[in-house]
């Protein structure tokens, strides 16, 4: 086992800010992009439904 404790894991040998700053932003962007793509499908569907009702 590389990490002796949870604190050591988050500390990342003093590079915690850099490592978690990288992973955090990457995950946030990927999740945001996925949600935006899904939202775009929803909006397109809703527009079609609305158009057919008018």
């Amino acid at each position, binding site marked *: *086992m*590389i990490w002796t404790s949870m604190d050591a*894991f988050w500390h*990342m040998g003093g590079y915690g800010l850099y490592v978690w700053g990288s992973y955090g932003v*990457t995950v946030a962007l990927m999740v945001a992009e*996925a949600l935006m793509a*899904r939202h775009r499908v929803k909006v397109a569907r809703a527009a079609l439904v609305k158009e057919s009702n008018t």
Partner: protein
Amino acid sequence: MNQAAPALRWTTFAAPSRFFALSGRMVPWFWVATLAFAAVGLYIGFFVAPTDHQQGESYRIIFIHVPAAWMSMLIYLVMAFWAAWGWILNARMASMYARALAPTGAMFTFVALWTGALWGKPTWGTWWVWDARLTSEFILLLLYIGYIALTEAIDDVRRAANAGALLALVGAVNIPVIYFSVRWWNTLHQGATISATAAPKMASTMLTAMLLMTLSFWAYSFAVVFTRARAIVLEQESDTDWVRATVLGTKEAKR
């Protein structure tokens, strides 16, 4: 249109209606693959791969930095390919793939630059330097943004696709420049981690984690690009019978 399922062949994904039906079934599996590869990749990357004797733990950024940089280049080539295909053969679906790919490519380019800055600070002592590798990757981000802005600015779908294709093709020159920049110029950025002619310059567990994260990002790209392409199909084909039947089908049947 051709709702009656034709045989599965290479043209299957060329018809928007067939793409829409098939991609709907495939997207959930790409998400499963994304999460599975990431789970194993991150486990190996953080709990199996040893501490680097030169860079300490900061090197663990590599598990997302290199895959993101690879995807940023690969997606651009795929985007330019479909854009050109759509332009030359006047194929609607190809142009829609190109436009669906651009935001994901831009996102991975930004991630490569961002993680590179956060890796550069502790190892080089600087967030950013205008060397060949970093500058050409930054130009890639500008190309993606330019492509998105150009295609969004032109209302006529056909003209937008053709203008975008021209930009994408001209910009493709930048991809070999990025890739070979560390060889052609004296850069602060290190050389290729993996090459076809030399043994990998890293521990095999590190390499395994990096390749698993690449597979995860690859599956992610399919999931998100297919989802966005589905939205684009609905937007651009909204006046066709099959779109109405697909989206409103169940509703109409109830009436």
